[in-house]
């Protein structure tokens, strides 16, 4: 029987935190790319594309992330494939983040005054050129703070992947609890590590918001 000191608990949790960070970054990048695609579908003047993008956002925002994880985990089995937990976790988190990011960014695009589009049109720019050179650069500035803020949701979302068996911070917490029978200490430490990851991001998001908004109002 091996005894766990508090240091052993923290060390093992910190080792597992690497996987939380890796999965968060991967899902954030994947979600960003897919989210951008959905954003474009959502705003281009095509009814079918807009409808498809809205349905996507509605479905992924209107169902629990946990269900999306379960479906990503069980659906490939229908075709005789067995996906490892991390693949299912990455796919579900990416699809889920994409829906939220697309919706956040749509708000930012809509906040760019219509006159900017019209000004671009009057210069003879194509729709794509208006989007690329006039609207998106302005929307990007507005999008930075809420996008950084959403990263906190992604980090917290990775906790759910423990339920389908991906060993990250929360799963490590459960495993260590089963070995040490010290749930108070272990889950307390787990919570503090998540806090240490997320709070600086939240703080940064608020700082950026203040900074960028001041500049925005000054125009």
């Amino acid at each position, binding site marked *: 029987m091996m005894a766990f000191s508090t240091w052993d608990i923290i060390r093992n949790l910190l080792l597992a935190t690497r996987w939380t960070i890796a999965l968060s970054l991967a899902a954030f990048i994947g979600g960003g790319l897919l989210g951008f695609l959905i954003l474009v579908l959502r705003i281009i003047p095509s009814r079918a594309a807009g409808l498809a993008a809205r349905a996507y956002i509605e479905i992924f*925002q*209107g169902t629990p*992330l946990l269900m999306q994880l379960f479906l990503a985990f069980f659906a490939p089995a229908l075709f005789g494939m067995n996906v490892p937990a991390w693949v299912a976790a990455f796919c579900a988190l990416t699809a889920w983040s994409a829906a939220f990011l697309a919706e956040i960014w749509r708000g930012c695009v809509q906040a760019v005054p219509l006159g900017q589009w019209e000004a671009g049109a009057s210069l003879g720019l194509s729709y794509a050129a208006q989007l690329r050179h006039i609207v998106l650069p302005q929307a990007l500035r507005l999008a930075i703070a809420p996008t950084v803020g959403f990263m906190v949701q992604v980090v917290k979302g990775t906790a759910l992947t423990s339920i389908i068996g991906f060993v990250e911070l929360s799963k490590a*917490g459960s495993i260590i609890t089963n070995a040490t029978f010290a749930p108070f200490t272990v889950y307390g430490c*787990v919570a503090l590590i*998540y806090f240490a990851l*997320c709070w600086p991001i939240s703080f940064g998001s608020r700082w950026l918001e203040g900074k960028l908004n001041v500049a925005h109002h000054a125009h």
Partner: protein
Amino acid sequence: MTYHFDFGAVLVYWPALLHGVLITLELTGFGAVLGVGLGIVCAYIRLGGPRPLRFIIGVYVEMIRNTPFLVQLFFIFFGLPALGLSLSAIAAAILATVINLGAYSTEIIRAGIEGTPAGQTEAGASLGLTKFESFRHIILKPALARIWPALSAQIIIVMLGTAICSQIAVQELTYAASFIQSRSFRAFEAYFVVTALYLALAILLRQTLRLGGKFLFPWERSR
């Protein structure tokens, strides 16, 4: 190799699904009412209360908003008994939901109150209202009306988040899915049906909250 879908094998367990829906709604209902109530109290203290209390509420809000609900739930259900506070699964789930939504709604309501022009409070004072009356009628109600869409969105997020309570064996909708798949071996169909139920619940809840907003704040026209 082709797979034959069999949703019938899942739907015969409709009493389990119905029970799951009811427990999910119970968690959401308690969570929403008590959580928003907690948020109102905390926002009130945060804006005008004594400094140490304001600080404590600030710490509470930041702690909850920057940690996963799953960990909060495990801490309450598995961790608190070490301090001598043992809760049943459903009580722990309700407590976690209330604490979670309380933190988010504190921030949302505070933002709404901070957006209220100072002239309104002064107008209340000039009418001879007490501090509490002025808070209730002049500050809180317009603030709630303004942030009602944000609050509704958060309540729906909390409803979807209650899926996690299945992990401490609360018999809500996700638990029903796990139960059905363990009986029928139809994992995909079970989770698919339950996911569709969640989507329906989310849409229904959103419409209900929208109607509720119209009823509570009839002077707000912009929705």
